[in-house]
């Protein structure tokens, strides 16, 4: 039977000396889809939308990750969401686009430690070493679609949909213990 969403504790954390997994504080997440002329949209948002898939841009505390040819994920503190929505509403009249607030859809796990990249190989078939620092990708982790952000060589963030979160977290927690046992 599927566990109800509240069954997953939002402050779950696990870790050992080599790698630690924590749940990040809630933030604003906005999914943006737009095609054609992006100039007016960028002017309204006050940032340059990266064109290459996986590239990131940052303005203040707002981060943008390009997920597809016409798709971006915007995230920042919860207070910025209304500002971004208002800016996009202005441009919408002349440049139709889709901006959806998906803040409540997923949780973010912060994975850090010397073995962080190795922990991800447990469920991710990609070559983690080819994911450059300061980039991000949508990929798969043990069957669940996740968005990986690489912030440093030994620090990642992983956005996981709520319904997959308990499974992904349990797998990461098991991996933490395994890697610690190997290191010991």
């Amino acid at each position: 039977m599927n566990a109800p969403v509240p069954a997953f504790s939002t402050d779950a954390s696990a870790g050992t000396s080599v790698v630690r997994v924590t749940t990040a504080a809630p933030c604003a997440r906005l999914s943006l889809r737009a095609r054609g002329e992006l100039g007016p949209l960028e002017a309204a948002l006050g940032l340059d939308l990266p064109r290459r898939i996986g590239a990131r841009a940052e303005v203040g505390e707002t981060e943008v990750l390009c997920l597809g040819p016409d798709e971006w994920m915007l995230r920042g503190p919860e207070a910025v969401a209304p500002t971004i929505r208002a800016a996009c509403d202005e441009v919408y009249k002349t440049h139709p686009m889709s901006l959806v607030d998906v803040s409540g859809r997923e949780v973010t796990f912060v994975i850090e430690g010397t073995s962080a990249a190795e922990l991800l190989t447990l469920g991710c078939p990609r070559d983690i070493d080819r994911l450059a620092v300061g980039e991000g990708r949508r990929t798969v982790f043990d069957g669940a679609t996740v968005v990986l952000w690489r912030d440093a060589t030994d620090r990642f963030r992983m956005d996981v949909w709520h319904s997959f979160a308990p499974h992904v977290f349990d797998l990461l927690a098991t991996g933490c213990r395994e890697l610690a046992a190997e290191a010991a």
Partner: protein
Amino acid sequence: MLLIHCPYCDETLPEAEFTYAGQAHVVRAQDPSSQDDGQWEDFLFMRENARGPHYERWRHFHGCGRFFNAVRDTVSDKFLTTYKAGDARPDLSSLLEGQE
């Protein structure tokens, strides 16, 4: 595991991120009401079942989410090429030459 090149991401990635989506270049008629039952049958049900190079659609499901086309040899499972949806069907003889 197969490694598949996504023409949108421009990266060669593991098969687990992709899903197969049937034969490529199956075109729906411009004027559907002019089609008779035989033509509908061909459009809906008749597929090639090729032994050898096969033009097929794939989707980068756990990635950019895009559908794209590929030419894969159904015997060796080797991808001859991948190209964006909407691009013209690449010439098979030049693809085969490139492999040798």
